[in-house]
């Protein structure tokens, strides 16, 4: 089924103005931005989540702040950043993309920490899990399901954002930039095909990466 759809799509694209080389090149450029931003967001989210949940006072202070910040639209940051970093549009995109991806990961991990089983914590303590050993052998494995769930949402929101961001900020390469270019040239059929190919590629990433990962980490996430 999947193969048939791909072949038909490929044949039809041949007759449109869509340049598949440019589209795929753009996709790879956008994907690289996504990977960089996602890695930063993941690391920072894990650190912040573990820090603020380790202390009631910190949590009371920062949780409301983060809650307000996460509902702040990332696009609203653009005018300021474009002026501030006008020579490096790449940095602007990476920065704001990171901020977009971080919230779902952060809040899902905080939720995961809140749902931790108390007796598992006690068992870890009694059997001597301390410091970095506790982090690698207890805390992170226990939070993996939350981390992956948050990542899936964050990754999705990231793609939504990056297409728009590449249209707004002047970058030469990027799937958003290329689709924007087709749009301004009124190549509507090519644009439609471009969007279809993009969706197909995102579906493939989901199918080979996120879904198996989610399955693996949730398979043995509970005792019962």
């Amino acid at each position, binding site marked *: 089924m999947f193969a048939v759809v791909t072949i038909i799509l490929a044949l039809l694209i041949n007759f449109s103005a869509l340049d598949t080389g440019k589209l795929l090149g753009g996709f790879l450029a956008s994907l690289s931005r996504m990977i960089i931003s996602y890695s930063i967001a993941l690391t920072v989210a894990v650190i912040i989540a573990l820090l603020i949940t380790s202390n009631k006072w910190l949590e009371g202070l920062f949780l409301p702040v983060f809650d307000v910040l996460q509902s702040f639209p990332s696009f609203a940051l653009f005018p300021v950043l474009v002026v501030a970093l006008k020579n490096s549009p790449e940095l602007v995109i990476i920065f704001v993309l990171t901020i977009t991806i971080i919230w779902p990961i952060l809040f899902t991990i905080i939720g995961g920490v809140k749902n931790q089983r108390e007796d598992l914590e006690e*068992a870890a303590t*009694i059997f001597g*899990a301390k410091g970095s050993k506790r982090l690698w*052998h207890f805390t992170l494995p226990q939070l993996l399901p939350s981390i992956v769930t948050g990542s899936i949402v964050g990754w999705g929101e990231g793609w939504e954002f990056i297409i728009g961001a590449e249209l707004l900020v002047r970058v030469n390469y990027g799937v958003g930039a290329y689709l924007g270019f087709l749009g301004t040239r009124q190549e509507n059929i090519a644009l439609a095909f471009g969007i279809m190919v993009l969706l197909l590629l995102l579906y493939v990433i989901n199918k080979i990466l996120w879904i198996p990962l989610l399955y693996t980490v949730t398979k*043995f996430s509970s005792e019962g």
Partner: protein
Amino acid sequence: MEPIIQVDNISKVFKTEVKQAALENVSFGLQKSSFTCVVGPSGCGKSTLLRIIAGLMKPSAGKIIINERIKQAMVFQNFALFPWLTVEDNVSFGLKMHDKDEKQSEKIVAEEIEKMGLTGVTDKHPKELSGGMKQRVGIARALTVSPDLLLLDEPFSSLDVFTANKLRRELLSIWQERNLTVLMVSHLVEEAVQLADEVIVFSAAPGKVEMIKKVELPRPRNLRSDAFYKTVDEIQAKITIS
């Protein structure tokens, strides 16, 4: 004989919206190699007491006098196995955390796995095991760190009667073989009288020591003898009255 651990006038108040006294002026000592059971109605602070002794909670008043070198391990009511680890990795968890030499710990882990009858399931995850098997893993995990003091928090109350009975007998032989000091929390008086040298009876809200009863019935204990029932009744009466 010097007690291995002395609980000295422990009180615990939980500071929730209303202050809740969980334990009040609890004092007792545990002799080395003894088997002690704490019984009492639910909510009498038995589990809290166990957690204070284990160092997981701080008492509001009083102190625990214990030799620093005493190694403790705990077996939990709901097993508290790490779900992402296999049986083998669960059992070896304590040794891994203490940087035990790898060859040596492999040997210890293999021994405990065999003794607890887990040989066929070392690669399985807790999810794939029955309740009885899970608690075997829980006990093996505790024994690998070769504890001096074994704390058990209602270890058999989530198991079916047959499995619980079998594990009780195994626990007894483990205790006798290894010269362990055992402190077990239970809500079943029969279980306490079957296993313990000494039963500490708690009253509820706040938890206070109502009676400390030495059980001098000869081992192995006859669970149908008059003497057994007499002891059970004596303890039961204390719990019902209070």
